[in-house]
């Protein structure tokens, strides 16, 4: 939306400044660990933000998003190893890997997106399991042994810095895509689908197609991220890159921040990764996680619609009025 109000310009300026500082960071010679840590933060922002396109905007809670991440990782490593790609080739290879993830999203989205609500959540969860187990059983994909990828022949802080910049770039692109979608016709259609898919259809919203598009877009970025992550780790294993906990974590991150806007997942992913890290540094792991668990409870009890909604100026939220609640069995 072309909006050139001063406050908007101010925000854009601030964002560019922050980005610039972030991009500069790894070259200032910080301990590599901090570079890696921020790399993980970015990765989760990418994952949560792209999840949010299907999960937050369209209301289709995918619990299998880690599958796309893993597919991207495997595709990248397979490509690099089979074609003997150079580092640059490998980096570029993450893009087709993302495309492969998106393509798979289209294929499985076709039957799965016909399901609604929790059913969709569960079928995507199953999908992630199936992919995970299948990869583990196919020896040409390394099977239960996993795969190695040759790392860049560069000093570690340089190679980490490069991967950092890549992930940062991907983060920016993902956020821009998410913002753009939120304010576009496409985003409006997705919102209508989230609210009531039947009604959306009477408004000529081509729900099946929009959902698939959203699903594909939201699978693409995790695919690319998976590729970059594989390169970062140099060794991938199904239990690492198809870990269902990642799926659950990204859903929580997005919802924690608030799924209705692009900002929510950004805030959620950043907050949770930092909190997690902070806690595990200062407290014994069990107690750290007990605190972590309490945090979810506190947030949900006091900010039931995510952090973002909580700090937003409030529109008066209506109580769910009970007039004319659609009754099962009655026609739509």
């Amino acid at each position, binding site marked *: 939306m072309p909006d050139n109000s001063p406050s908007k310009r101010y925000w854009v300026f601030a964002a560019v400044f922050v980005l610039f500082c972030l991009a500069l960071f790894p070259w200032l010679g910080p301990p590599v660990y901090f570079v890696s840590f921020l790399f993980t933060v970015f990765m989760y922002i990418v994952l949560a933000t792209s999840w949010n396109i299907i999960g937050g905007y369209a209301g289709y809670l995918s619990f299998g998003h880690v599958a796309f991440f893993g597919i991207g990782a495997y595709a990248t490593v397979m490509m690099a190893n089979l074609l003997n790609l150079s580092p640059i080739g490998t980096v570029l290879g993450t893009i087709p890997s993302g495309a492969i993830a998106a393509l798979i999203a289209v294929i499985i989205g076709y039957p799965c997106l016909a399901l609604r609500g929790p059913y969709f959540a569960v079928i995507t969860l199953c999908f992630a399991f199936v992919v995970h187990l299948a990869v583990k059983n196919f020896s040409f994909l390394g099977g239960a042994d996993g795969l190695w990828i040759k790392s860049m022949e560069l000093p570690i802080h340089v190679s980490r810095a490069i991967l950092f910049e890549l992930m940062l770039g991907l983060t920016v692109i993902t956020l821009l895509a998410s913002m753009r979608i939120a304010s576009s*016709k496409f985003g409006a*259609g997705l919102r209508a689908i989230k609210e*009531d898919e039947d009604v959306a*259809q*009477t408004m*000529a919203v081509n729900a099946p197609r929009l959902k698939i598009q959203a699903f594909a877009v939201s699978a693409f970025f995790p695919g690319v991220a998976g590729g970059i992550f594989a390169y970062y780790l140099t060794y991938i294993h199904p239990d690492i890159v198809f870990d269902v906990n990642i799926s659950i974590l990204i859903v929580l991150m997005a919802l924690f921040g608030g799924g*209705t806007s692009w900002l929510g997942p950004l805030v959620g992913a950043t907050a949770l990764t930092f909190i997690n890290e902070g806690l595990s540094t200062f407290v014994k792991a069990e107690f750290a996680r007990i605190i972590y668990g309490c945090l979810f409870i506190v947030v949900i009890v006091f900010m039931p619609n995510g952090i973002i909604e909580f700090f937003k100026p409030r529109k008066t939220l209506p109580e*769910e009025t009970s007039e004319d609640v659609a009754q099962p069995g*009655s026609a739509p």
Partner: protein
Amino acid sequence: MLKGSGITKRFGGLVALSDVDFEVNRGEIVGLIGPNGSGKTTLFNVISGFYKPDGGEVSLLGERISGKPPHRIAAMGIGRTFQIVRPLMDLTLVENVAIAVLYGRMGISESTEAKDKAYEILRFTGLAAKAYSLPGQLVLEDRKRLEVARALGSRPEIILLDEVFAGLNRKEILGAIELTFRIRDEYRVTIFMIEHVMKAIMESCSRIMALHHGVKIADGKPEEVANHPEVIRAYLGADYAGN
């Protein structure tokens, strides 16, 4: 313009519609009456693509629409309201209607413009004052108006109204009847409406069809149908005359 022939719809053992023929011509206001559970809403659901008919077909302007998905049918120019209102609860009224404008046949794909247009439609349906509030705060009557506004948003050729007069008192019904005529005249939309409020239907419709147990039992001028013995027996009741 909208034409159905031999439409049959079954739910398990129940025949909700059996071999129904109908036709709605451009510019008409056609009423659909019938006892509760006679299949009226089901017929609308078949037309708008939510149910696939078990037999027969529906066509719009000569093009077959049965079997097409609901959004295609909507895009071809059939708008509808829901008997049990279904506003998009988290969106303001303007946003509700703007989505219909964006995806409908207005050819608008820019949000701001769509919202302006949506506001215009809301004003037309008498909801301008509440345009930026959420549907949860509306009374039933206004929610029904919102349904109508949303249906108009996609600029349909024909609009299916399912009991938008229910729960109104006599005075309010007069307002609603007027709105119906204005929809037809200002938006050049053909209207096909289900109604139990006989006053509304008698005064606004040029033609009425009556269903009973999924079978069409009458079709004709309002007075004809109102005096049709079977309609009186099954639907209006003997003391209708006194009402």
